[in-house]
Every structure is written in structure tokens, then in C-alpha cells.
């Protein structure tokens, strides 16, 4: 575990930002911190990055209570980006690297790697204010990872990125993961993380409502729905499954099967093969993160009501 968070609570003057948060984040891999705006994600990140202090609770970093020196192993890309407008790209990147404890010489070597990678050699001597927005975001990203942090925290990393740069960012994130870094990825756009994240935690109204690996959570919340495309005789509801969202075009039918009883996928296929249809495609319909979130929030509020 790179991070073990226990009973973390943070209150601002008159509202609770985080309430008894417990979270374990595995070393390596991408961890998604999901929740709507104002849920407490940024408050949590600010505590992890040493910007503010928690009221109570403990955080272990690699098994040791977190302290000032750990910030050298962290890279933080805040939601609100910012660079010194009048400073050149090179000076700026070296400055941030040195603040993160890198020697000037070492920083220059690492900078060269990223400069080659992002092909920004011609931009090094330019002031940040002369750069396009996309270019500034690249610079900001380099500033986040230049000191080779083992924990990288990205707060809404895709906001403001165009599709090309967003893809570039995804590639870099995957590369960093392959190199062994742990990435915490905070966002309110839940659709963007399903493919990227290994593990997630859902936060709503200052409380953690769910966490685990993406696969497990999807299995846990799946509603045994299957998408089916076929042609032939139209399928009707029977004792095995309900048919819904039936559409037809050019003799090809698309529909959603909802199981009445638990069955394995093989059993469903066997049952379907006995029908007078030819199957074009068949696949289990897993719930989207958004659906899971809504369901989890409802469950939580129901259990709160009953309690």
C-alpha cells in the first residue's frame, strides 16, 4: 500500500469537508477518486499534498506517517492550473523541479528527456504567456512529473484539454503506470475513468460511499443485463428473461435481456441457441460508473433512512 488513510476528518468553519474517510491505495496502478463537485475530493488531495492539515485521522505513506519529506515523492497537478506568465518555460520547469528537491544538474538531465518526448525544444526559451493553452498544459504536466514522483496526483487532468492532447495525456499516464508510479486521478466526469482506472473510490457529500477495483464493483452492481443482436423470429418474454429496448432495422433486431434467475453466460447462450434466431452479437451489459454512483448514493441514503 502506498497510502493508508484512516478515519480522516476535516472541517472548515461551519461545514464538514471530509467525514471519517478510510481508504487504501495500492502501489502501482491508477486510482480514481470520483464524486460530484464539492464532494470533498480536492480537500482530500490538499491534505495528501500537505497543503492543509486534517483535523483528525492518520495517513501512512509507504507504511510511515506522512510528513513534509514525502512531498518530494509526490507530483501534484491541481485543478486550477497556473504558471508564472513572465518566466521562460525552462526556468519555470527547473524552478519547480528544484522546489521538489532535485539538484539543478539532475533537473536539467530529466528536462531533456521530456523536451525530446514532447518536442518542445524550440519553446524552452519562450515565456509562458507566449504559449498556446495546450502547450501550457504540457508544460504544467512536465512540471508535475519532472522529479519522477512515485505518487502522482492529478486533479481533473482532462479539463480544458482538446482530444489530441487528452489522448497524449492518457498515453503518458499509462507510461508512468508502466514505470511503476501510482497515479491518483480525481474527477467528477465518471465516464472518463472506467477504461483508465484499476481501482476507484466514490465520494459524495464528504463521505466515501464505495471503493474497490473497477471490475469487482461492476460485478457487484451488475444487473444481469445482456445486449443481443440477432435476426430471425422476434424473441418474446419467457420464464428465463425479459426483453426490453427492442429495435429493428433491415431485419436485424437489437434488444436487452434481463435475467429472471441467475444463470451463467453459457447457460444463456444455450437457451438462446434453442430459439429460432441467428445470433449476430452477444455481450454482458456492465453498469457505467455513473449508474453505479447513482445506485450507490441511493443505497446509502436508504440505509441512512432506515438506520
Amino acid at each position, binding site marked *: 500500500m502506498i497510502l493508508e488513510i484512516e478515519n480522516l476528518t476535516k472541517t472548515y468553519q461551519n461545514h464538514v469537508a471530509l467525514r471519517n474517510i478510510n481508504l487504501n491505495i495500492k502501489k502501482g496502478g491508477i486510482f480514481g477518486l470520483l464524486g460530484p463537485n464539492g464532494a470533498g475530493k480536492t480537500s482530500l488531495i490538499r491534505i495528501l499534498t500537505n497543503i492543509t492539515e486534517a483535523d483528525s485521522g492518520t495517513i501512512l505513506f509507504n507504511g510511515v506517517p506522512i510528513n513534509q519529506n514525502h512531498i518530494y515523492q509526490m507530483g501534484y497537478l491541481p485543478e486550477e492550473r*497556473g504558471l*508564472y506568465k513572465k518566466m521562460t518555460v525552462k526556468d519555470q520547469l527547473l524552478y519547480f523541479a528544484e522546489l*521538489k528537491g532535485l539538484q539543478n544538474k539532475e533537473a536539467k538531465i530529466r528536462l531533456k528527456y521530456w523536451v525530446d518526448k514532447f518536442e518542445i525544444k524550440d519553446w524552452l526559451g519562450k515565456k509562458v504567456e507566449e504559449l498556446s493553452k495546450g502547450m501550457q498544459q504540457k508544460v504544467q504536466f512536465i512540471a508535475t512529473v519532472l522529479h519522477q514522483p512515485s505518487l502522482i496526483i492529478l486533479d481533473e487532468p482532462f479539463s480544458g484539454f482538446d482530444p489530441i492532447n487528452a489522448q497524449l495525456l492518457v498515453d503518458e499516464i499509462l507510461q508512468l503506470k508502466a514505470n511503476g508510479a501510482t497515479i491518483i486521478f480525481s474527477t467528477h466526469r465518471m465516464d472518463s475513468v472506467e477504461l483508465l482506472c484499476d481501482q476507484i473510490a466514490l465520494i459524495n457529500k464528504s463521505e466515501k460511499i464505495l471503493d474497490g477495483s473497477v471490475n469487482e464493483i461492476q460485478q457487484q452492481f451488475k444487473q444481469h443485463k445482456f445486449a443481443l443482436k440477432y435476426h430471425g423470429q422476434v424473441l418474446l418474454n419467457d420464464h428465463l428473461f425479459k426483453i426490453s429496448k427492442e429495435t429493428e432495422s433491415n431485419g436485424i433486431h437489437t434488444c436487452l435481456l434481463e435475467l429472471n434467475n441467475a444463470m451463467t453466460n453459457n447457460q444463456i447462450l444455450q437457451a438462446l441457441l434453442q430459439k429460432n434466431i441467428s445470433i449476430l452479437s452477444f455481450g454482458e451489459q456492465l453498469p457505467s460508473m455513473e449508474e453505479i454512483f447513482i445506485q450507490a448514493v441511493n443505497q446509502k441514503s436508504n440505509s441512512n433512512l432506515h438506520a
Partner: protein
Amino acid sequence: MHKIFLICKREYLSRVKKRSFLLMTLLSPLLIALFYGMIFYFSINKNITEEKKTILVCDESGRFENKLENSKLVHFQYKQLKPAAFEKTLNESGIEGILWVRDSASNLSYELIAKEQVGIGLTNTIENKLEKIIKNEALAAKGINETTLDEINNLSVNINTQIKTKIGFEKSNSDASSILGFLGAFLIYFFIFLYGVQIMKGVIEEKTNRIVEVIISSVKPFQLMMGKIIGIALVGITQFAIWIILIMVFSGSVTSIIQNQMQLNSAALQGIEGAGQGAQNMNLDILQGFSQFNIPLLLLYFLFYFIGGYLFYGALFAAIGSAVDSETDTQQFMMPITLPLIFSIVFAQHIINDPNSSLSIWLSMIPFSSPIIMMVRLPFGIPPEQIALSMICLVIGFMSTVWFAGKIYRIGILTYGKKPSYKEIFKWLFRKN
């Protein structure tokens, strides 16, 4: 410490490397010299700014006929005219006005009839010239001739002050002390303002650009604040050092030019009318007066009070910058900081008149005013125990404002949105991180 150094280095280099820094450092003394040079030049050569004017004197009494002194600016012509002809004469000749001296039963009254509003300078000049003639006539009537009068007019008094020092009584020059004191006080006043505002702008820039969040994740807010304050102070000191070097390089030649000029002038004046020697002597006295000061020691004091005062106010400027989102919101918070500064510079003029009054002593102990007030008083000589106490007060003062500002700063830089009230800022002082 290493972090503060890094921040300090960035603040320093990013300012000193700018082309405008070098330009302003070199140009501003030139501009100031040019500015004062022009005032000096125009005050000596008045005829450049004012045109020569001709006044027609219509003197009923006949007492001033051909006696009014012509000068560079006013030229007198004499002619008897009937009042009815005034308007025609004014319109047809190029004269500025008609001085009509009316004589009714030996009571003289004077009227200046002019085409347009005349300057107060012109009426004063004419009044003085008329007065001089009347007074001379009156004195002559009492038996005093012109030579005696000149002798009396050339009498002048110049006090040489001697003050008690460790090695007995020494000559002092309060004019030179005043000039030096004011110079130091103004420099500190401007530096605090100039660089204090730079701190504030720097903090606001970091806050509005949201850079602060990245930096605060690597350094403590206090380190960021101190790095910035010290970095900008070094910019000021660099600028000042460049000026001192420039002054040392040029002052030798300039002083000798001024002295030559003055000697020439006084020689010339003596040659012409033998007057004005007293005034010239006084100027030379002031110049010589400067040599009596222990300039390196005064510079050291200046540096101390400059740094102390700057830290004292700079921390407060940093706190303001952190509390607001944009420069337009700073006005309300600037007031309580700028008022004591302005008060001190206003009081400085009273302090000059009485450098050792109890008001002077109190103001030089209070850190809000001491940097400026002490600059004014130091050239007059102050007991060492007072200097020590004032310095200790200033050190305690800036340590408290730095502490106070640090508390506000750490909360302020991460607080966006509504402009906070004084009450809220006060609460920040006691809030946990």
C-alpha cells in the same frame, strides 16, 4: 532554508533580469537629475520663462522720474499722459501696462492699468522698486547716504553651531544635517512604498494564476512569503548599490563643477555689486558641512532602517496581497498601512525643527514611524542608547508583523472568492491550517 533561498533566487532573478530593471535603475537618477536640473536652470534664468515687459510710467509727482531700475524682465519708460489717453496708448503701443502714480495733496497712490491680467511677480517687482526709492528718500532725509546704506544692507549673520561629542565640541551644520536627513527619509519612504507594492503584486499574481497551490504543496506558506520578501529586498538593495557606485563615480567631478561654478558666480557677483556674498558662503558651508558626517556609518544606519522598515511594512503588504483576489480590492486594506507612512513623512518636517523633542524620541521608537523619523534625526547626532533602543524596537516590530502576516498569508492564499472583512481576517490569525 534551502527552499527560502530557491524562492528568493527566483524572485530576485526574475526582476533583475528584466530589461526594464536596468533601464529604470540607470534612468531614474538621470530623470531625477534632469528634473531638478531643469528647475534649477529655470529658477536662475527666469528670462526664459518670462518675457520682457515694458511699463509706461505716468508720474504726477515726478519723484520716480527716471529712477526706477530697469531689470531683465521689466523695462520702464516715462511719459506724462492724461488719463483719457490711457486706452489709446495701451492699444497702440506694445507696452504691458501704465503705472499711474497719482499725487493728491502729497498722498501718493499707485495704479497699474494693464491690457490683461498681470502676474503677481510683476506687481511685486514694481512694488519693491517703488518702495526702495521711497525708503531711500526717507533715509536720505534722515541723513543716511547711499554708501552707508549699502554697508548696512551687506551685513549678514551666519551661526556656527558647535555640539557636544565624545571628543569635545565639534562644528555642526544643521542645514547639511537637514538635507541629509530628508534625503534619507524620502529614500526610505519611497523604497518601502515601491517595493512593498511589488510584494503585494507578486502575491496577488501567484494567487490569481493559481501557481500558489503547486508551490504550497512543496514549500510552507511562510517560506514562500519570506522568500518573496527577501528576494524583492535584494532587488532594492542591488538598485541602491548601483546608485551608490554611480554617485561615487560621478560625484567627484560633479562636486568640483558645482564648487567652481559657485566660486565663479560669487566672484562675478562681487565684481558687479559686491552683494549676495553671504548667501554664497552659506551654500559653500553646506557643501563643506557634508564632509563632517561619518558617511559610511550613516549608510550603515540607512541600510538597517531601510531593511527593518521594509520588512516591517513588506510583511503587511504581503498579507494584504494574500487576502484579496485582485489589485482593485486592495484599496481598503492599504489605508491603514499607508497612513502611518505618510504621517511620518509629514512629521519629519517638525522633527527637523526640533530633533530632540520628546515627540521626536517617541516617534523614533515606534516601528511604524521609526525608519523615517530616525533617518531625519540621525545626521543631527543622537545618543547611542536611543539608537540601540529604536533598533531593538524595530526588530521586535518586524518580527511581529512577519508573524502576523504569516498567519494571514497561509489562509489567505488558498481562499478565493468574496473579499474578506477585517473581522474574518482577524479570525484567520487563530485558525489552524
